[in-house]
């Protein structure tokens, strides 16, 4: 029923007020009288109304002097003309008595309690006017033991008031179902898992329960809720492409704790254990604190002046002797937009070369490339918020609950509410039990499977003719390709029964709106770009583009991998994705920078290694990337770095890559600098320094500005707003961005004049005009063709929630106590054949090398497939990975490696070398 606006009025203590359709009584009061006017205990803004504590009780009547009824305001819907009485004597008495009863079973040790001063129970008790507890002390739960088992989470359930906020946070925010209420009545109590400790339960340490708990019953080792901070600074997390907003509490230059702001559009008071708890690396003793210069093979501490002079002298010499093309730069998706922008400017302007690339090369370069080919823009078409409006979710080659935890939990929440989920993944990921369809294909056969998926959409007549005709081109060729598919061959290739593919395809295509997410399981293949384009095809053929609840959304891996490419850290495109070998663009850049620029496409990262080995690349500058540990085929990378004449590395820690450097510059972490990150949904967000750089270090942006000035390249001093203003003048889709108008919530690009953002791309037309269909026939990876006979297993790699990449940061935090090693998952049938048991040390070998790791027997993989995470580089899993890569972008094929496996006899076990000491 549509409400007449004039009737949207109700009364608070006699005063008429407007309300919104769908308001509860409490929401209505909160809006007009402020949160806290009506006290609450079990209600929390991030949770659904629950109505358990009854402290929020009010009296309601349909006429001012009509009969009144007491209701819990939090879950009572408001109706027009309702009279709400918030402070009647009866209500005051009721509330006071409820709180009094709560206090009979609560330790009254407020003065020494962790949350004293920040305790909601304390606030509510004061608000309702408790002066004494009239009840004698009787049976109680005051002697429950504390749980101190976990590196982060703590509990002291004698402080628990049974409001179930933690249970609901675990269910409704995270979706982990670790907490629940055991028993009932007076004996009800909170349990973790099957009545275990935090450490032994399946808790993922997201901290949602701790943030939701109104007392100190569940908290964390940093006392996040009650922290006595001198300052709280809002910034953006550095751990993944979700871009969670964080409130960081500091005292002087000490980071005390991190919480998630409730008003954040990206993460709504939620974040994961990396964002919330993994910050202790900042002051770790291993941090580099002085520039290091290598003289005669040994590092010597130096001043910044000495280091800059040494670098300038050497780079000038190399430029003069070998030309600017002998210099290259690798920028970092961990760094800010401003730093990435400066880095590419430094290389392009300073050396007249386009030899600039970033770590997007090894993760999402196929996404940027493929989506540009299909749509014209290499970025997510929609926002994560669209999950609220979608009718079907397709995830291809991504594991969001581990890799993008907050997006993962949002997906899980939607699926638990009935939105069908399709997972295309060779492994049984955490979301699979929730999925309606799991297409468990052989690694490396995405194109074969997605072609079949598209074929069945076509066959079922579920294509959007109108959309295809008006908005797209090249349909005929694509359709022809699908019609000529050999389904038998296709089915044999990917190994998923065709009926399952058909059912999933029909599910996707018949949904009113369907969102397609993908991750590195799509891109890190020899046909990565082609898979991205095929996903784009499927979205276009079903008209799933350009409106809420649809789209193609790459789950960008690192916090600023979107930004690194936007800022031009790619050898073929400058800032703002303008092709460097286009004459008009070249002119534009030369005029803008007032310098001679190259109009030749530069080297991609793998080509830089080859050029170094061929003696063509002499100097390399790496900003915040550990290529030795993270790029494939380690030996090849090492020999390339060895072949260089001069290597500069900006780093937080002495990484294996930094070990190869001639100069190592100590950089500042994300908590020590300001700038902007662009998350996976194109949202440009402000990163604010919460503490100054630790003594001896400088932010990456500052370092690049310093060296440019030292080398005589015109560059102003580093300020985040100053650099952003320069970016806005050259990057078309940053045109309206200023430091101020990005606001706390950030703005999604393209940003128009006045700071107006764009939530959905390609609404009326595609960026490239018409959306272009591309048909690709499956081709076997060369890795399999060349090596499968000799190495019959396929090894594929992925991530785990607790660690980030090679663990440089997370392994210097408490996370290292939670997950201590990488394990190799092997199917029980294969394990039996090879005589391997869980926990056995096994040797995995390819034609490149071998590694040893511990086996875990699991049905998460199919027979013939092995799986491992890659966060413990001492295992050196990249010793076995290949140099095969995506044909279009040279993104390495980490996901398909031909290997064999065998049990290592206990006697011949090599001593495990640890590269890092964990604090």
């Amino acid at each position, binding site marked *: 029923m549509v409400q007449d606006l004039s009737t949207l009025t109700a009364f608070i203590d006699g005063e008429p007020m407007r309300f919104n359709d769908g308001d509860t009584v409490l929401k209505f009061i909160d809006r007009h009288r402020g949160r806290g006017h009506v006290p609450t205990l079990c209600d929390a803004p991030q949770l659904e109304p629950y109505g358990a504590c009854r402290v929020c009780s009010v009296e309601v009547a349909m006429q001012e002097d009509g009969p009144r009824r007491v209701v819990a305001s939090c879950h009572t819907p408001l109706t027009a003309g309702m009279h709400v009485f918030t402070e009647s004597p009866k209500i005051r008495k009721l509330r006071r008595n409820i709180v009094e009863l709560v206090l009979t079973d609560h330790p009254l040790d407020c003065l020494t309690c962790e949350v004293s001063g920040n305790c909601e129970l304390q606030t509510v008790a004061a608000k309702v006017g408790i002066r004494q507890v009239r009840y004698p002390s009787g049976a109680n739960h005051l002697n429950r033991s504390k749980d101190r088992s976990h590196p982060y989470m703590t509990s002291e359930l004698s402080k628990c008031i049974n409001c179930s906020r933690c249970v609901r946070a675990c269910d409704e925010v995270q979706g982990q*179902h670790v*907490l*629940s209420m055991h028993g009932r009545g007076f004996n009800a109590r909170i*349990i973790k898992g*099957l009545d275990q400790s935090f450490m032994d339960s399946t808790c993922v340490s997201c901290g949602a329960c701790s943030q939701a708990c109104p007392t100190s019953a569940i908290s964390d080792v940093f006392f996040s809720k009650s922290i006595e901070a001198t300052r709280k600074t809002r910034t953006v997390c550095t751990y993944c492409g979700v871009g969670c907003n964080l409130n960081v509490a500091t005292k002087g230059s000490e980071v005390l704790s991190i919480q998630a702001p409730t008003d954040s559009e990206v993460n709504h008071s939620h974040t994961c254990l990396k964002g919330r708890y993994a910050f202790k690396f900042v002051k770790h003793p291993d941090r580099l604190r002085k520039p290091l210069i290598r003289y005669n093979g040994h590092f010597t501490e130096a001043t910044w002046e000495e280091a800059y002079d040494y670098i300038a002298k050497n780079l000038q010499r190399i430029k003069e002797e070998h030309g600017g093309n002998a210099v290259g730069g690798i920028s970092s998706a961990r760094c800010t937009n401003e730093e990435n922008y400066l880095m590419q400017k430094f290389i392009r302007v300073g050396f007249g070369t386009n030899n600039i690339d970033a770590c997007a090369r090894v993760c999402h370069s196929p996404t940027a490339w493929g989506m540009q080919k299909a749509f014209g823009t290499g970025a997510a078409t929609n926002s994560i918020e669209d999950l609220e409006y979608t009718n079907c979710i397709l995830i291809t080659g991504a594991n969001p609950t581990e890799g993008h935890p907050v997006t993962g939990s949002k997906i899980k929440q939607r699926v638990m509410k009935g939105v069908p989920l399709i997972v295309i993944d060779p492994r049984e990921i955490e979301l699979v039990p*929730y999925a309606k369809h799991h297409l468990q294909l052989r690694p490396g056969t995405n194109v074969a499977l997605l072609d079949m998926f598209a074929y069945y959409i076509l066959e079922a007549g579920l294509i959007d003719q109108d959309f295809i005709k008006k908005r797209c081109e090249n349909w005929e060729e694509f359709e022809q390709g699908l019609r000529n598919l050999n389904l038998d061959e296709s089915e044999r290739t990917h190994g998923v029964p065709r009926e399952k593919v058909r059912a999933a395809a029909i599910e996707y295509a018949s949904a009113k709106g369907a969102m397609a997410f993908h991750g590195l399981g799509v891109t890190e293949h020899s046909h990565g770009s082609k898979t991205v384009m095929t996903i784009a095809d499927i979205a276009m053929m079903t008209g799933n583009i350009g409106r809420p609840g649809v789209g193609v959304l790459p789950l960008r891996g690192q916090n600023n991998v979107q930004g690194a490419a936007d800022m031009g850290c790619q050898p073929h495109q400058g800032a703002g994705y303008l092709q460097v070998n286009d004459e008009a663009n070249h002119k534009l850049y030369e005029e803008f920078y007032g310098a001679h620029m190259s109009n030749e496409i530069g080297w991609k990262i793998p080509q830089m290694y080859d050029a170094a080995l061929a003696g063509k690349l002499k100097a390399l500058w790496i900003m915040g990337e550990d290529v030795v540990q993270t790029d494939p085929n380690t030996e090849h990378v090492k020999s390339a770095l060895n072949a260089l004449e001069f290597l500069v590395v900006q780093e937080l820690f002495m990484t294996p890559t930094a070990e190869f450097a001639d100069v190592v510059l100590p950089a500042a972490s994300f908590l020590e600098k300001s700038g902007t990150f662009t998350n996976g949904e194109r949202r440009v967000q402000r990163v604010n320094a919460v503490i100054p750089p630790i003594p001896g270090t400088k932010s990456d942006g500052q370092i690049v500005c310093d060296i440019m000035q030292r080398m005589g390249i015109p560059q102003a001093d580093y300020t985040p707003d100053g650099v952003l203003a320069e970016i806005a003048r050259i990057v078309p889709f940053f045109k309206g961005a200023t430091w101020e108008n990005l606001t706390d919530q950030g703005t999604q690009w393209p940003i128009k004049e006045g700071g107006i953002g764009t939530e959905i791309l390609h609404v009326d037309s595609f960026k490239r005009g018409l959306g272009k269909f591309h048909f690709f026939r499956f081709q076997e990876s060369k890795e399999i063709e060349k090596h499968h006979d000799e190495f019959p297993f396929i090894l594929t790699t992925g991530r785990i929630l607790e660690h980030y990449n090679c663990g440089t940061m997370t392994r210097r935090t408490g996370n290292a106590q939670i997950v201590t090693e990488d394990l190799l998952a092997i199917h029980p049938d294969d394990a039996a054949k090879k005589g391997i048991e869980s926990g056995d040390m096994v040797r995995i070998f390819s034609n490149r090398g071998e590694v040893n790791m511990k086996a875990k027997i699991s049905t998460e993989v199919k027979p013939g497939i092995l799986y491992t995470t890659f966060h413990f580089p001492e295992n050196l899993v990249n010793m076995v990975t290949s140099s095969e890569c995506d044909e279009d972008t040279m993104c390495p094929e980490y996901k398909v490696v031909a290997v064999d496996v065998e049990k290592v006899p206990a006697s011949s076990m090599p001593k495990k070398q640890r590269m890092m000491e964990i604090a």
Partner: protein
Amino acid sequence: MALAIPAELESKIDEVITHYPVSKRSAVLPLLHLMQHQFRFISDEIVNWVAAKLSLEPIQVLEVVTFYPGFRQTAPGKYHIRVCRTLSCAMAGSYELMDSLCQAAKIDRSHVDHHHPIAVSEDGKYSIEFAECLASCGFGPVCMVEDDFFEKVEPAKAGELLARYSA
């Protein structure tokens, strides 16, 4: 050690699940009844099995088990006795009946509390617990041995009652 589910039970379970097409979570309760009938009590292993069967987290099953006193979390004796202690029976002597049954069956109830309501005899043959109303208020005290129902049980005849279950 894997839980051995008889094929007949599993097919019954599969059939029961079809009664709940909207949310499999609703099948927790009937599945727990079937499992308790088969295995006499609900072990953690059973909790995990039911959770996996219904694609739930184990805690979502455990919370149901602990909410209802009718589900046992520890093994009962060969013959499980439930003595009603609700008002009419209590007035008619259910506490005396409990005492004399315990004496006859050699059951020590001193460790019984809310979380551990069941006491088992030394030889494991009998176990006993108080139950709420068994719906025969006019004929207290009443008790049940397994699924057999007894009314107006005189405490003095506890031994006689147990003798029927001596096998």
